[in-house]
């Protein structure tokens, strides 16, 4: 359902749909790693790993470092901060709303001034 999410966010969730890609990200959460290092635990070919890395790069989740020919991959913290931001925004929206709802409910329960 591509239309349901903002395009970048949608790519991001789609990239996470694959268990190998999720495992790659979990590995990168511990620090940067080369393509060879990333492929080892999965026992899959380097072209297959490269394809997964490409999807993760397109989704803005990882980037390639500049260090030498190995160009180790690492997580892009910005991607995670964006997610953190909308979760924080959602939290703020409901906390602000609930504070006002408290007041509305108190008002509804006030005894009738006539009575």
């Amino acid at each position, binding site marked *: 359902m591509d*239309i*349901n999410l*903002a395009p970048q966010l949608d790519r*991001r969730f789609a990239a996470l749909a694959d268990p190998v890609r999720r495992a790659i990200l979990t590995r990168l959460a511990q620090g940067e790693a080369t393509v060879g290092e990333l492929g080892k635990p999965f026992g899959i070919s380097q072209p297959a790993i490269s394809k997964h890395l490409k999807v993760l790069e397109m989704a803005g989740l990882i980037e390639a470092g500049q260090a030498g020919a190995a160009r180790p991959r690492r997580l892009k*913290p910005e991607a*995670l901060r*964006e997610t953190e931001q909308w*979760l924080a925004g959602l939290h703020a929206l409901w906390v*602000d709303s609930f504070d006002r709802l408290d007041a509305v409910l*108190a008002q509804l329960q006030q005894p009738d001034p006539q009575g």
Partner: protein
Amino acid sequence: MSAQMPASDQSSTAPVFTIVRRFAAPRPLVWRAWTEAGLLGAWFGPKGAKTTVLSQDLRPGGRLHGRMEIAEHGVVHFRFVYREIAAPERLVWVHSFADAAGEVVSAPFLDAWPRELVTTVHFEEAAAATRVTLTSEPLGASAAEIAAFIDLMQGMEAGWGGGFETLDGLLAKLGG
């Protein structure tokens, strides 16, 4: 000693966003405040917002269309498309920003905000009060994908240390 479930197994079933709050009012009154247009407009929205419900059709598939005046962003519209209305226990709707005609639009001032959020609210009686549990998940992303994202954020925080204090506080609140 009991076996500890891995964090990933726990979060794979947890909704991406949860907030719980106890309101000092009986459940039927709390239900009214969430479902009557005039009352909802009196409280829903970010801090300082002036909210007006423009139209409401309170039935599954029906819509609510509203507008909010927010100091720093001007006028924004929003809509609910109701999925489930089980008075006075459970209310489910798909929540979006909208245009003046009620069509879904991307968040007007945030790049990475999901276009549609499935919002589920449970109302439970707690003595004379009401306990409200609200969850929200992006439509179109599976729970496993969202859980993976949350795990990843936690993993980064653990791995890199510092820099994610905000998230730490947030997750502590969400976990409540």
